[in-house]
């Protein structure tokens, strides 16, 4: 993890919920991979409020600039210089020779999938994104046009669900913090029903975003209870193989 500065070049309000920020960044940040995020503090903060850093999630990268997507409630203005710790987290582990990727945004805005989808759909991977609840409020024009959108119900059903799972070479799921155990446990059950014999590594991953204290793997506050070893959302996530996770 390194400390750099970034300059806010442009701020675009893209929906009631989110805004996109174009950042001029240190060249080192152009190495970021989908899944990795920035841990940001403003320079012009009044005193110590807010106190903790904010997690800014990249959605696009072009030469010389990085675009992140953050809640529209946060203040951000062009020409502001921000202080960045990065990278937070590891690249999302995409399975080798993947052809069909299933993404599920369960009542959470699919921001963390956007950069991944953009990267992979260029490489010919077929991507299906299931949206339900809050996720359906996301402005779909911000996603790569190649992504197939499926609208799910609140009760976690959508057309051809079993087929979707059978076709998928990998499944990634995102739910808000307080629903993760429930949603991710449910996904793992479904996957186990469908693929009874083999469950290769990283076949079903959950994205774990917790409120981060240090963001650096030091404090242990973001630990994800796992069978084998100590896993930290900030240092080992956001994508964690659900086979490793202890539910309840």
């Amino acid at each position, binding site marked *: 993890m390194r400390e750099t500065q970034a300059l806010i070049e442009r701020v675009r309000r893209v929906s009631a919920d989110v805004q996109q920020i174009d950042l001029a960044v240190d060249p080192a940040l152009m190495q970021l991979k989908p899944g990795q995020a920035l841990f940001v503090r403003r320079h012009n903060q009044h005193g110590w409020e807010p*106190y903790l850093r904010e997690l800014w999630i990249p959605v696009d990268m072009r030469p010389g600039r990085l675009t992140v997507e953050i809640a529209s409630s946060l203040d951000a203005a062009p020409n502001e210089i921000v202080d960045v710790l990065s990278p937070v987290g590891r690249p999302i582990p995409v399975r080798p020779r993947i052809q069909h990727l299933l993404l599920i945004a369960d009542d959470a805005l699919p921001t963390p999938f956007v950069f991944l989808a953009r990267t992979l759909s260029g490489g010919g991977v077929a991507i299906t994104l299931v949206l339900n609840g809050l996720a359906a409020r996301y402005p779909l024009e911000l996603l790569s046009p190649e992504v197939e959108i499926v609208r799910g119900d609140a009760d976690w059903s959508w057309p051809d669900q079993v087929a979707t799972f059978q076709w998928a070479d990998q499944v990634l799921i995102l739910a808000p913090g*307080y629903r993760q155990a429930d949603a991710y446990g449910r996904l793992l059950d479904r996957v186990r029903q469908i693929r009874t014999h083999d469950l290769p590594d990283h076949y079903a991953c959950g994205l774990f975003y917790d409120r981060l*204290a240090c963001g650096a793997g*030091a404090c242990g506050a973001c630990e994800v209870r796992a069978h084998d070893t100590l896993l930290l959302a900030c240092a080992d996530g956001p994508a964690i193989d659900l086979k490793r996770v202890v539910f309840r």
Partner: protein
Amino acid sequence: MIQLTRSGKNPLVIETPVMPAAGIFGFDGAAYRDLLDLTKLGAIVTNPVTWRPRRVAHGTRVVPLPAGVLVHTGLPNPGMRRTIARFRARWARSLAPVIVHVVATSPAEVGLCAAALEGCEGVVGIEIGLHDQATPDDIAAILDAARESTLPALARVPLYSAVESARAAAEAGAGGLVVAAPPRGTVRDPESGQLVGGRVYGPWLKAQALRAVGQIARLVDVPVIGCGGIHSADDARDFLEAGAVAVQVDTVTWVQPRLLEVIARNLGGLELTRVAGALPDEWQPGMSETMRLLRDRRPTLDLDDDPPAPPDLPE
């Protein structure tokens, strides 16, 4: 040289009176290796370790507060034996001396932890985290158990009972005192809507901790490390003026890691200014103030080699 524990056969001596507080920096400082210069720190205090392994707390662990944060981790750690197995080699190569924080779960477990740490290269001391409800008898039993090792032992006292706990720990032979562990609080977690508990941190904590340090430094004859709400080199100097020999920096390390280094450089005697031609990477806003501030405060600072007599602080 700063002596963190009483004179005797094995005092704990460090070079710079600044270190991270327990729980802030991980078990070996690796998380901050690329964010600050670890050689500038007086010591690294590890995350709390218990004899038995502990998982992270269930439920909410981090809640933002006005100018601060509530943290409740549940003290996750792999247990003392596995902690030593995993970090022993890194402690031996550590860029700063290591003080291992041992949670005072019971005298027996503290004794086991102390014994296990004996002979770990790079480990120069033990910090014992006293429980909020520890009585003077509990404290005596725990410090007695810590004698299972020849490592010097610091006792970390809780804020609300800081004066009584410090007195008890000093009488029970603590080598030094860390004043104070932060208070507990109850807040509403905006995500779950529930009231949740944990320890509360922030710059406003300094007022409460500084008062405890001033009271204790006048009361006991044991070196005191000040801790609580330090967010600048000036904050740290206030603790020294109140009678502390060194300080621990807590959550600001998460917010602005470089501030820990800035504070360590300032209190370590590196009075750098841009004008004086410091390397740019050694300069931070506020650093150039050091000399002026020291000069302004000269009348109240004792610059002799003798430890300064704790001033008569207002309460």
